[in-house]
């Protein structure tokens, strides 16, 4: 893959910044953020064309997602994502083509083979844990995975993600309580985008920060600017390392913003001032990242443009390819209610 080549090239250049990341990693960051965004844009178009009944996306949250996912060890660590986490899944190895199969509900979508709504991720081989639409339930599953690994003696970290709205649910409390009692290696990664559909955080919680909720469990907590991919990585990485060494769970809150409506079904003009949106749009994590690495002289502009061209091509290919893939047959609905043995 072209990215891999660029990665090698980047690695050969001398480090001349304080990002605590190799240039290869920085390229990866840009690549994944951009890929997620471009995929999401195309998904929305497919939705408007009547080809994808439903789209829910993470625009505005890519920096948080990519920064956090890159702090994990792929192949070893588990990811229990939530519906907005396309970018995380890409980092964990999901391909653009697979993402497109997913949004189209295609027969071969590895996430759910057309059985779940789009953006309900799953890939056991990549250690991406299947999740439902019911928010916060996955937090408890993540704790169970960590407990299982502890019992078996495998050293790994589980990252469980959700929005800030989900933290009001009972399952959030029960998950954090258990993880903290047993000091399990779970990173609860909360993408606080300011809204749960139409509800602002003031209606969801009595504290200014989701991270404050960690205090009930004497749990490590951190707040990070979720619009800054590098900062997210720099915050999450040490937490992951510490958890891996047995230091107990973390609650990490990434402050970000939902740049789009809740989903393709939502009309956010009903509840969200345009002015606020415009302010946040200026902080778009992808453009901010681009400008910053250019200003800091990390890459020549051509390198970024190369990535951009590559992403365009990858997305184009994915859409075209996925549209041509078979739909599930009606009676496919009947299989795998139980695991055969």
């Amino acid at each position, binding site marked *: 893959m072209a990215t891999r080549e660029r990665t090698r090239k980047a690695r050969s250049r001398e480090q001349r910044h304080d990002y605590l990341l190799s240039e290869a990693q920085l390229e990866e960051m840009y690549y994944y953020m951009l890929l997620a965004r471009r995929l999401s844009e195309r998904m929305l178009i497919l939705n408007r064309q009547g080809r994808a009944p*439903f789209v829910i996306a993470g625009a505005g949250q890519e920096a948080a997602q990519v920064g956090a996912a890159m702090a994990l060890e792929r192949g070893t660590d588990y990811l229990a994502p939530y519906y907005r986490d396309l970018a995380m899944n890409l980092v964990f190895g999901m391909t653009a083509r697979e993402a497109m199969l997913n949004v189209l509900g295609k027969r071969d979508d590895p996430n759910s083979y057309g059985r779940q709504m789009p953006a*309900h991720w799953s890939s056991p081989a990549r250690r991406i844990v299947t999740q439902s639409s019911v928010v916060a339930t996955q937090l408890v599953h993540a704790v169970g995975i960590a407990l299982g690994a502890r019992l078996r003696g495998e050293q790994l970290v589980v990252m469980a993600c959700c929005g800030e709205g989900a933290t009001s649910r*009972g399952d959030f409390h029960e998950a954090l309580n258990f993880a903290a009692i047993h000091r399990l290696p779970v990173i609860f990664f909360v993408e606080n985008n300011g809204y749960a559909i139409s509800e602002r955080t003031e209606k969801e919680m009595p504290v200014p920060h989701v991270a404050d909720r960690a205090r009930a469990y004497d749990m490590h907590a951190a707040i990070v600017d979720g619009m800054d991919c590098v900062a997210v990585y720099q915050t999450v990485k040490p937490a992951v390392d510490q958890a891996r060494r047995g230091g107990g769970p973390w609650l990490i809150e990434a402050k970000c913003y939902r740049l789009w409506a809740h989903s393709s079904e939502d009309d956010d003009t009903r509840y969200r001032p345009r002015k606020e949106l415009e302010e946040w749009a200026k902080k778009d994590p992808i453009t901010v990242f681009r400008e910053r690495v250019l200003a800091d002289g990390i890459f020549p502009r051509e390198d970024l443009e190369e990535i951009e061209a590559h992403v365009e091509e990858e997305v184009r290919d994915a859409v075209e390819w996925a549209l041509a893939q078979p739909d599930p047959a*009606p009676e496919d609905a009947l299989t795998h209610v139980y695991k055969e043995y």
Partner: protein
Amino acid sequence: MAEVSVLEAVRMALDEAMARDERVFILGEDVEAGGVFRATEGLAAKYPGRVIDTPLAESSIVGIAIGAAHYGMRPIAEIQFADFIHAAFDQLCSEASRWCYRTKGDAWLPLVVRTPWGGGVHGGQHHSQSIEAFYAHMPGLKVVAPSFPADYRSLLLAAVEDPNPVIFLEHKRTYRLIRQELNGAPAETRIGKARVTRRGGDLTLYAYGLMLHECLAAAEELAAEGIECTVVDLLTLRPLDTEAVLEAARATGKVLIVHEDTLTGGFGAEIAALIAEHAFEYLDAPIRRLCGPDIPPIPYHPAMEGFYMPDRRKIAAAARELAAY
């Protein structure tokens, strides 16, 4: 008066209930902005302080409504999708259902839980489900599942006035699909009453929600072929109008029970069991159920969703077979 959709009928009833009785208030997720289906649109502005956005936490939405109802208010809780009510299963079944019973009537709960249910909207596994069988099994709860706008309006008002916990099921596929001129439309105002929507001597179809409309469409088609159906709109699943159920079965001798929910242990089983016990002598054919297949409902892709959902075509086919028995 123009035709009114199911959604408009619900909104009208909410508005009327709030205007009528100061104790009525609404709580739920996103209800201030009107709710994801816009059932509460305009009400927060019209009734300041009486439409309350809650955190995303269904157990507490129901539990808080229980407390408020006990205190003497008349809460209407909205669960955004019926699929998400299960976190409140404990509050509904362990608490609300038996508040009156366990105090022998010293305390009671004038409580309504509204929630959109049902498939046909490409909602996949968790925005499509039928939940009625779980809750209709619980003595002490009432479960209402209308089909026509006029009934939505009148039965929602009745639910608000009922001193017992009522789960009010709104079929989301019908929200905009089904319209009715309210003036002169038959409207059932009593919880616990079914209605014979169509009369025919060959067989009886039982249904509620979207499926009632599919049954009516099938009955129309069948009539053209000379097969005359009685169609019973159950309206309330608990307490069930067993007399109406049995009467129709006795009159036609053949019955077809239709629901979207999965077959095994679905609410149709109860209808079948009732008939098999109390209308046995009148039966001319096996009791047939046409329901969703026994898979975790409902697959997302339209092809599989269509395969899952009963519809007029499948109903007509089953009815034809039954009529020929």
